[in-house]
């Protein structure tokens, strides 16, 4: 009974727990509930991934209504992997939440934070697991609305403008997706993804479908902050509460990238997206611009959260570059980087949460002398930074390796060179932090800062440790990513 309904439970448990968290009112109580829910979601997604890898895709009929009329939940290697990323990061970040939230958010708003967090989790898991194009829009709205709340809970008053801007941009993005889906519905009369894929095959000359494709592409690009549609992202990450930054940076854009993969490869099919439509070249150009502009801007940032946010823009560039190759190796690199980037940014933003907890700020000046006063936190930042650069034995190296391999396979050696040059820019902005922390000394009160509490250090180090572990033992991640890439391209699978 429970086993057969796991796909539904994956979404339903966090959804129903969200109002409960609000009713509990006390921050700590809500946290315990949210933590339990996250762990349950993680357990379910691990189970789903194992099942999918062992027996192939799972199709679940919501309410017993058979697709294509009813809503279908469809789990294959691609989204099982993304489910694991979202619920895994959600769980680990939640471990750190109690300490950090108690410091950053007023007592009466804490249960509100956990409610929004659970709703956001619901939305992200729902987008990933559903097999219905309209359902994607619904969950997108759930996750977006709760994200606006999460961001606006930030202490800085600029958080309100950031949330408002994101609200407008997010709504436009969602609307574009809705318009696109509407056009597809108009042409085919179905909303089920697999059904859509089948019926779109003969319609590749239809102007309506082509326009729908453009709307979906732009809408999704906005949600995943592809350059130059990334403008909402730096402020949103910079002024949100630390925990919200960590959770959103590690999951929200990843889910948007997944939606892009799903639409371009499963719904429209690789032939339509990359041959009828000029997707490959547009994505490649924007991705390379994202890598260079994002990294270059990050170098000049003073606010470290903003610095990491721009670095995210660059890292998203790497994923999109992999997608633009439309080969198994390129997609493997993109899907691997989904996972790997979640580990890096999750770990780094949690370390920033620890820095904020102790020093009360995250500008580069706040990092002065932290190498001495907060050695464990800073060491986590250094390793996370090395992973961002792509140093061997970290996950960053693994994804860059496949990306370069994918470029070379196609004979794009100059793209491979650009990827490597992009890594050099990362060296510069990571070095900024290292220099401040280890080569400058703190002045005044800052010199007496203590190491962060374990409740923040342990979750950060779980993610940083995973950076090393999956950098050495790559069999799990590359295996799943390759299976997922092959199934997206319709090769075996």
């Amino acid at each position: 009974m429970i086993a057969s309904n796991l796909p539904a439970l994956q979404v339903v448990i966090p959804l129903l727990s969200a109002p409960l968290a609000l009713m509990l009112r006390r921050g700590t109580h809500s946290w315990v509930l949210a933590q339990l829910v996250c762990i349950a979601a993680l357990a379910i997604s691990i189970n789903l991934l194992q099942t999918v890898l062992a027996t192939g895709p799972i199709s679940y009929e919501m309410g017993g209504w058979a697709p294509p009329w009813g809503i279908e939940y469809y789990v294959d290697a691609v989204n099982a992997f993304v489910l694991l990323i979202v619920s895994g990061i959600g769980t680990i970040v939640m471990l750190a939440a109690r300490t950090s939230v108690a410091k950053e958010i007023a007592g009466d708003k804490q249960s509100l934070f956990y409610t929004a967090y659970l709703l956001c989790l619901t939305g992200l898991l729902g987008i990933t697991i559903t097999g219905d194009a309209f359902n994607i829009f619904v969950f997108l709205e759930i996750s977006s609305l709760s994200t606006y709340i999460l961001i606006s809970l930030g202490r800085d008053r600029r958080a309100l403008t950031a949330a408002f801007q994101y609200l407008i941009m997010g709504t436009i993005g969602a609307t574009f997706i809705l318009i696109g889906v509407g056009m597809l519905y108009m042409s085919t009369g179905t909303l089920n993804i697999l059904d859509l894929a089948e019926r779109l095959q003969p319609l590749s000359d239809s102007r309506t479908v082509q326009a729908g494709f453009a709307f979906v592409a732009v809408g999704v690009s906005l949600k995943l902050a592809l350059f130059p549609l990334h403008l909402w992202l730096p402020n949103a990450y910079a002024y949100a509460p630390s925990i919200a930054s960590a959770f959103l940076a590690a999951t929200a854009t990843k889910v948007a990238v997944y939606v892009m993969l799903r639409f371009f490869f499963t719904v429209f099919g690789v032939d339509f997206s990359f041959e009828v439509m000029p997707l490959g070249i547009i994505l490649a150009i924007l991705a390379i611009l994202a890598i260079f502009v994002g990294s270059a801007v990050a170098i000049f940032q003073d606010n470290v959260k903003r610095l990491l946010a721009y670095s995210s823009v660059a890292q998203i560039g790497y994923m999109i570059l992999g997608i633009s190759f439309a080969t198994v190796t390129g997609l493997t690199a993109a899907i691997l980087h989904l996972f790997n980037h979640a580990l890096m940014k999750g770990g780094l933003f949690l370390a920033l949460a620890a820095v904020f907890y102790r020093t009360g700020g995250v500008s580069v000046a706040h990092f002065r002398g932290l190498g001495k006063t907060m050695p464990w936190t800073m060491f986590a930042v250094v390793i996370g930074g090395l992973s961002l650069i792509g140093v061997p034995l970290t996950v960053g190296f693994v994804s860059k390796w496949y990306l370069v391999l994918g470029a070379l396979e196609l004979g794009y050696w100059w793209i491979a060179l650009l990827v490597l040059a992009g890594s050099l820019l990362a060296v510069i902005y990571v070095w900024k932090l290292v220099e401040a922390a280890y080569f400058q000394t703190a002045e005044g009160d800052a010199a007496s800062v203590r190491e962060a509490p374990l409740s923040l250090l342990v979750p950060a180090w779980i993610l940083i440790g995973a950076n090393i572990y999956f950098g050495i033992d790559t069999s799990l991640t590359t295996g799943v990513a390759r299976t997922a890439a092959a199934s997206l391209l319709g090769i075996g699978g």
Partner: protein
Amino acid sequence: MPEYHPFLPFLVAALLAAVTRGTLRSIIMLLAPVVGGLMLLGVETGTLVQYQLMELTLSPYRVDALSLPFAYIFHIGAFICVLYSLHLKDTLQHVAGMLYAGSAIGAVFAGDLFTLFIFWEILGLSSAFLVWSSRDDQSVSAGVRYLIFQVLSGVLLMAGALWIWVDTGSLAFDVIGLEGGAAWLIFFAFGIKCGFPFLHNWITDGYPASTPTGTVFLCCFTTKVAIYAMARGFPGTELLVYIGAFMACYPIFFAVIENDLRRVLAYSMINQLGFMVVGVGLGTALALNGAVAHAFNDVLFKGLLFMSMGAVMYVTGRTKASDLGGLYKKMPITTALCIVGAVTISAFPLVSAFISKSMIMSALIEEGHGIIWMFMLFASAGVLEHAGIKIPYFAFFAHDQGIEAQEAPRNMLGAMSIAAVLCVAIGVFPAMLYNILPYDAPYSPYDMTHVLTQMQLLAFATLGVVFLHRSGRYPAEVPSVNLDFEWVYRRLLPGIYRIVVRTLQIIGDFIGSYLQSWSGNLMAALNRTHGPQGTLARTWPTGSMVLWVAVLLAVFLVLDFL
């Protein structure tokens, strides 16, 4: 028995040595080679542990008949070195020493070029710290020069390995053979660590600069790993015979005029390596066995000699022949042990070098290299002169300088005794060593011709030295530093470099002022666009964000409808 990597005990010991001190650290460090050695006894040849790293199939742990003898001697050598350095309180040397010994063992078990490269680099880096551990100006600059050679070797190895991987898709470390650019790169990578002529300066420059204990560590591992790598990758490469013969001969001249006794030993080391390289170059079963056996013995007798000179340096603070003499009264045990080492390196019958060197000499005759054989004979005579007589004579006898001294510490004497006993035991019972040699080539060292040839050679060589000495023609020991080929590295190249730099400076000054204003403008422009308040980084009004959405949609639609 569970499969564990033999690097592990040393890594653990290095980590623990960093945080413990006193007796506990001594016990931990002595245990590492003992535990590792005991585990090694249970390992069978043919053990192969493979591991998948992305696209690469790595075999970090491969045991076969060639790697085992090296692993045995490295464990023995590590034990002796640790025992010898127990009196130290220097954490840096202990940690570096453990990592260094461990990485040598890791390198001989590396089944692929990538793993080999990793251990190759740890080997180079940790040993550079041993050179630096003297902590004086001379050792700092010598250590940097030493590290440059090590890094160069590592870079060549990595480049060659990548090249091979791209060409063949495999990284397996087996016979490479001297064909193609990749093979040459790897050949020179190994060659640098073997001390090839003109690439040897890191040995003669770096080893004497280290501490008394550091030098003992250094002489045991790096070059033997290189001999192993040569024997694995390039057996039977004829070029090696000539290189090896040259290596055996030319250091003799420098060793004779050298004043620093540890530097004499460093030259002598190159000379011994020459014998091994010749053995590898011949490539027959007998010759390879000889090279392996000689490497095995060299760790013991060269270690013994370096230890005795280290003891002298530890007690008196001097190593120059012109400053020493007459120590036999105050350090009788050290003197005796040093003489055992000197007798061994000269390859008298009944000591270990005799049974291994004669294998290489026999193989030379079998392969018809008569002329090279003559050269090697000359080299053997030279060994007796500079290592067999010069070292003990100038350190312990010669003119009594009346130096304040006492016997070396007990742990040093113990370490030296172990090495001395092994030197003699292997010489008396050669089967002990022959049984673990990799190839099947039965050999008996104690027949009439070998013993007679060697005794004649040694007798006449001794006679020659005595004659030169008596007649006053022997080069006097003058306090000086001799530069050999390193003159090119240390004088000529820096000279050229300085001229080039000056020229560049003049040109640079000329365009510098222009560039400065230009780069200033560039930075200002970058700051305008990328700076915290720059165009690309500032918070944009919502309206212009939406404009971008429209632009991108338009791009999609236009490109699509074209």
